[in-house]
């Protein structure tokens, strides 16, 4: 890897729900609109991350509290979407981010069920898979991703992942000291089911509250073991067959 691993730290405690990230993302990446549907789910009318929504601001109304969180592709350390892609359209960049090459993608859709977060999706019209690129083109040009650039309150922070993790841990510590005991990080732990995410979050409630899986596991985690079991089974079968034949005296 030529560069440091880069990522996002999204601090929901300072998110004001302005959705500048959603708009900046679409402007920069030329993502089409996602339909015009009044969903009557708080101030959220884009629903969820998908092929045409790469940043999505969730609004959670609780008693006396209104949580807002800008969700995005997690850019996993162990990225199942990448593992299952048969064409090599999905690849890991020099920034250790996961990107789909739309000119290579053949629309097979294997990546869609592979994502433990339900992030990547195919567009109905062209069939190809789309998701956040962490603004790969901007990064190569030495610029930060559009969403982070547009965020007015630094809720979305971009930088080297090591630095972001340290900053995030300090932030949680400070919030705890101020009595915000519910503050917690989500996704930053390298020992979690996806080996840590390149985009992680500071939340004020359980992940499920924001529509995030509480304990995501890379869906290809068990593949080696499955292959081992399959191999073992094949060997056992072969051995059995051999024994069968070995037992027969001419």
């Amino acid at each position: 890897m030529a560069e440091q691993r880069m990522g996002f730290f999204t601090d929901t405690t300072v998110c004001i729900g302005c959705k500048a990230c959603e708009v900046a993302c679409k402007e920069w990446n030329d993502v089409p609109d996602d339909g015009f549907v009044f969903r009557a789910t708080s101030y959220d009318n884009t629903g969820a991350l998908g092929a045409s929504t790469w940043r999505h601001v969730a609004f959670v109304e609780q008693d006396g509290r209104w949580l807002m969180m800008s969700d995005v592709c997690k850019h996993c350390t162990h990225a199942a979407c990448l593992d299952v892609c048969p064409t090599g359209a999905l690849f890991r960049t020099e920034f250790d981010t996961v990107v789909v090459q739309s000119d290579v993608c053949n629309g097979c859709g294997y990546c869609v069920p592979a994502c433990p977060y339900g992030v990547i999706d195919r567009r109905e019209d062209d069939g190809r898979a789309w998701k956040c690129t962490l603004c790969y083109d901007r990064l190569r040009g030495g610029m930060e991703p559009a969403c982070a650039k547009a965020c007015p309150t630094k809720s979305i922070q971009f930088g080297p992942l090591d630095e972001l993790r340290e900053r995030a841990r300090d932030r949680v510590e400070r919030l705890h000291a101020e009595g915000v005991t519910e503050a917690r990080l989500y996704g930053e732990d390298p020992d979690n089911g996806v080996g840590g995410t390149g985009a992680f979050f500071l939340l004020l409630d359980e992940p499920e509250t924001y529509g995030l899986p509480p304990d995501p596991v890379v869906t290809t985690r068990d593949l080696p073991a499955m292959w081992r079991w399959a191999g073992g089974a094949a060997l056992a079968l072969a051995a059995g067959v051999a024994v069968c034949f070995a037992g027969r005296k001419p």
Partner: protein
Amino acid sequence: MAECHPVGYQWVMEARERGAKVFHIDPRFSRTSATVDRYVAIRAGTDIVLLGALINYVLSNGLDFREYVLAYTNAATLVNRDFRDTEDLDGLFSGFDEETGRYDPSTWAYEGDVPEEEEPVEGGEHHAEAAGSDSYGARGAGASASPPSDPTLTDPRCVYQILKRHYSRYTPEMVEELCGIPPEQFGELAEAVTANSGRERTTAWVYSVGWTQHSVGVQYIRAAAILQLLLGNMGRPGGGIMALRGHASIQGSTDIPTLFNLLPGYIAMPHAHRHDGLDHYLEQEGADTGWWGNRRAYVVSLLKAWWGDAATEDNDYRFDYLPRLTGDHGHYATVMGQIDGVVKGYFVIGENPAVGSANGKAQRLGLANLDWLVVRDLMLVETATFWKDAPEIETGELRTEEIGTEVFFLPAASHVEKEGTFTNTQRLLQWREKALDPPGDCRSDLWFYYHLGKRIRRRLGEGDDDVDRPVTELTWDYPEIGERREPSAEAVLREINGTAADGGPLGSLRELKPDGSTSCGCWIYCGVYADGVNQAARRTPHTEQGPVALEWGWAWPANRRILYNRASADPQGRPWSERKKYVYWDGTKWTGPDVPDFEEDKDPGYRPPEGAKAQAALAGTDPFIMQSDGKGWLYVPSGLSDGPLPTHYEPHESPVRNALYGQQANPARRTVDRPENPYNPALSPRFPYVYTTSRLTEHHTTGAMSRPLPYLAELQPEAFCEVSREMAEEIGLENGGWATIVTARTAIELRVLVTGRVRPLRLNGRTVHQIVMPYHWGYSSGGVVTGDVVNDLPSIVLDPNVYIQESKAGTCDVLPGRRPRGRALLDLIERYRDG
């Protein structure tokens, strides 16, 4: 603020991170409420009760910043013995005329200030008829420089005692009864505001149209001003009252105004029946003491900027060329003039009154009765397309083939397609470059007016007709750039800055002369082109200069970042505290990180000699230099149309009785009693709900700049209302379903968002439901998304000082389901009107 000014709001978030305690007081739980320390829900239209109770809390607990109050405000000043307060007259001040609905303000004056004429200079009928009060945007009305006073603050006629008595019944209990704020929440707010004021700390108030769009709008702001003066929070870092503007450069459009009653720099527009010539006008408009004592220099320099060599001392500098007021020429009076057929033509520039102004039907009926209409905008806004798709076409009230209005739609350039300045809320001018040429026939407003002016002049030719001279003699020659002959915006800025006798750029407004040797398009902007440099274009990053950042853009006046900053030091000129050190006297001059808002060498010990004029009439301890007495006015002896002290009146349409006075609503409010503008009766059981209108982050004003954009439209695709669970249950509204909102004007349909963020208010044992409606939708505007017009619901009832409409508080009924169509809609409204 998070909702409408997310970019500016980052600094509130940052302040919070640094320990500031932030309260949000709003009828609506918005994105701001979600991100502050404490949200305080309030019934729309009752803020003066809350602010008055805070004032009462300060006064009755002796928490005012006494040294500041004594030295810098008119607390000690004695008031005319004939003055009667609302406490004496059950909600009226002395001088009210029931017949005309107007006040004679003469008894409100300071002791010894006896009006010399029958018609008081700063008040009275002509003054009120033409929104005269509005011209005090940057100044106080005339009053004595040194009226009698009682520094012990014990005289019952001194302002301090009058104030105390006036607010004595504004108690936490009254706040609970009228605003719906529980006493413990009020206590927390009062404690925080007072604990964070004084020598060591300051508190700032931030407001927007939730405070202004009321029939007592001006007095809302006045109430905040009283509180801030009592707590010593004016002219000091971290203090003040900040008006958030509705969109880019609204501040600029009052400084160099698009208002009928003002000339550039808050100079009053002359009145046909009040002002004979320049001398008479200057004599009448403003005081001779305080900074406005220099007004001759500003007016003459303005006339020189406009009429150049044609303006000479002999001809009063062409003062007679200025248009004259004959009365109210405000927006709503204009619309009524259209309906009456008196107003024949209409320019609508970057506005969309068919959706944005109160009582949209009246707006559209006016448009339909014009001879011609010019609309300049980025999109085909509803104001330009009303003739084919207005709601009145559907109901049959208007028929396209019968509308005679000739509509000229002229496409405009957007802000990235032209150069110029934005002046934002803190008076900061920032120059922006043109990024690209406007497409096709789109042109800047500057191009439009300049070339329109040239064509008119060509038509007039060399004509000798006197009536044409104000146009033919106008200085109207800016360099034209490129094939499109775009006038140079920098040349205009240079003209606004002004030039000295030698033709060079002026450096400061202090160089302006009353003798015609200087010219200046707007005296408060003088200095923006100092040294021939576009000061508004400066962009030194904050990392390369101090926190006051004097080299980023340019703030009027004189690049001063905090107004009245003399008040950041004590009367002797020492900082009130090390922590709040700002501008101070170093023994020979005023200094500090900002430009001092004071004569730099004026000793704090200076006392004016008898008969001194202008700033020389103010002492070294008088920081509020625009006022005739240099004091912050807790009490306003003249200049306002509805009383010297803010008083709680219920909105014109309210479901609640005024618990403070027999007087229900502002007695001086302007009503428009016409068939196009029927009112819901106050306390009417047919209209039991309180509504307020609002904005969303995702859209801009009437949606003309956001609904055509898919990326914004998808984020908030449909017009909706927010209602509480309890209200939804009571009426049978379903989340995601439809509601029909009814007032005496019309009914509209909106999607329903049922939310726990809106809560019913408990007022004196009674439940009042509020409904919140963002107003961004309309029937066209090239919108990807459309919706009913929320501003069709409010009536036209106006604040008497500045004629702003009461669109932030009214009553309505709410029905489940969609509204009737066509004639059936009119029948529904008819049934409501008949009661």
